[in-house]
């Protein structure tokens, strides 16, 4: 098979292109070649793990039919492949509106993915367990905040892969070598000096949102110099999610923290500087503040809460209960949920009246229908990412630190 433009194909890739690994693999590879040509990739890179987003809510019947065509070709994944969250709840069903079509569609989607060899991990924040990539490891991930975290916080290498592209990489075992698989794309393009205090994951999400808007663009790479304190994994998780959500940013550095920051410090010092002051973050949060103070719905995360975050929320409740007029969801992964169960944290949260969702991100479900059914409108959250995603579904998001969310959950009112 003649390489398209200047794409150098290995012997195995040429064999795939000739159909020697089957027609289905050839067709999948041709889609990858089209992407490679678009982004000027001159080769492919083998990948060790694929993590894809593929639930019925976003795929619909069109996505299901697409999967079915690949199954008819007898396709199977060739590298370890996991899937992100599902779109129907495990537990807390009484506060969800799940249509029969969504339930059956998700079950069919699960079955199709399993037939392809995909492990249904039902986790978005896979980088917090159970599959943590190594520095320099080439992967093909398809959760935007997870990719940004993997690239920035861990030094792994991935582009943001859509569901079909991630599945293509899983089948062929390779992905086009462009973007963040390459050193050249990982250098900073913007130096961000942060003097604001960052005390809660909501602050880190607000930082990601402000910078995401200022420096939006897939190949934009902010280099953060933060005056006050070093981030935790959970802080960086929210930063990464918001950078991706508000700016489609897939890579970042934090001086003194992330593994490639020192390598790029000289470049960072020589490029355009931007400053984030307290007023920038306060202004971002206050822009969401409502005139009415009554609270009816609180959603913690996404990204999925870690065990540490769930423990912190449990301590904030301090034996108190969610107000009877308020519904509180906490999103977490199956792995973190298991840890919370084993440590008793889950029981504490449930006793407080928190509905803990495992393996389902609340906003991936039919939340427009839920809004109508339960008459929800104002949504209080500590997630900048969630605040960006729910306007279109009729919600009025209010972004606030976690302790404010908990206090409002108990009292039924914003302070």
């Amino acid at each position: 098979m003649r390489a398209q433009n200047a794409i150098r194909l290995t012997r195995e890739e040429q064999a795939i292109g000739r159909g020697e690994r089957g027609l289905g693999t050839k067709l999948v590879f041709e889609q990858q070649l089209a992407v490679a040509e678009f982004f000027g990739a001159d080769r492919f890179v083998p990948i060790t793990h694929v993590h894809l987003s593929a639930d019925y809510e976003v795929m619909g019947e069109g996505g299901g039919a697409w999967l079915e065509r690949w199954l008819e070709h007898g396709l199977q994944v060739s590298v370890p492949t996991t899937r992100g969250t599902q779109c129907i709840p495990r537990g807390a069903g009484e506060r969800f509106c799940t249509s029969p079509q969504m339930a059956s569609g998700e079950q069919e989607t699960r079955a199709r993915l399993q037939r392809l060899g995909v492990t249904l991990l039902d986790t978005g924040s896979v980088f917090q367990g159970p599959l943590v990539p190594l520095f320099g490891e080439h992967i093909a991930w398809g959760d935007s905040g997870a990719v940004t975290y993997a690239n920035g916080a861990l030094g792994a290498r991935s582009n943001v892969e859509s569901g079909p592209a991630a599945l293509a990489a899983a089948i062929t075992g390779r992905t086009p070598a462009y973007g963040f698989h390459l050193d050249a794309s990982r250098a900073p393009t913007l130096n961000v000096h942060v003097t604001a205090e960052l005390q809660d994951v909501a602050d880190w999400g607000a930082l990601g949102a402000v910078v995401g808007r200022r420096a939006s663009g897939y190949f934009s790479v902010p280099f953060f110099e933060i005056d006050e304190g070093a981030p935790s994994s959970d802080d960086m998780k929210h930063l990464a999610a918001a950078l991706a959500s508000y700016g489609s940013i897939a890579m970042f550095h934090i001086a003194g923290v992330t593994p490639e920051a020192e390598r790029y410090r000289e470049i960072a010092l020589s490029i355009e500087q931007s400053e984030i002051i307290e007023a920038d973050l306060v202004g971002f949060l206050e822009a969401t503040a409502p005139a009415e103070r009554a609270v009816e719905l609180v959603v913690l995360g996404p990204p999925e809460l870690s065990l540490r975050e769930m423990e912190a929320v449990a301590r904030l409740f301090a034996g108190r209960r969610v107000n009877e007029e308020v519904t509180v969801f906490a999103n977490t992964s199956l792995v973190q949920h298991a840890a919370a169960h084993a440590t008793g944290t889950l029981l504490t949260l449930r006793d407080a009246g928190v509905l803990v969702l495992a393996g389902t991100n609340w906003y991936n479900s039919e939340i427009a229908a839920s809004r109508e059914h339960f008459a929800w409108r104002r949504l209080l959250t500590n997630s900048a990412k969630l605040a960006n995603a729910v306007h279109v579904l009729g919600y009025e998001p209010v972004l606030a630190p976690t302790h404010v969310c908990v206090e409002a959950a108990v009292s039924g009112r914003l302070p």
Partner: protein
Amino acid sequence: MTVNTVYRATQAWGPCVEGTALVALTLFSPRYDLDRYGATFARPGHSCFGESIAERILVCPGVQGGVAGGWAFLMMKARSAGFAALVFADVNPVMVQGAIVAEIPILAGIDRRIFEEIASGMKLLVDPADRSVVVFG
């Protein structure tokens, strides 16, 4: 702007298509901006609020958000309600991958003067082979 203005792009994929422009001047996300079942812009306050996307050519400076576009274009096309073409200045892999899978022509790196000089409703020819958009005056 003169009759039949040509704007150049730096990256392109897909077949040639003619259609009607739908100009959105804020960063685009299928999940954040669209009613993906009704195939309309549904984000309150959006300049295209209420507009149908079916068979329209989206012209937009850039993108935000996550990976929903990879499946969303396919989902909407299956409902006969997908975009006719996508024209961006800045783009991310998800938009390109989603467009290719759904067989929707896509251009990126478009001359940014297009955002100042055209409006929704104008007739366009998107020619990926030529990496150009022709606006019929």
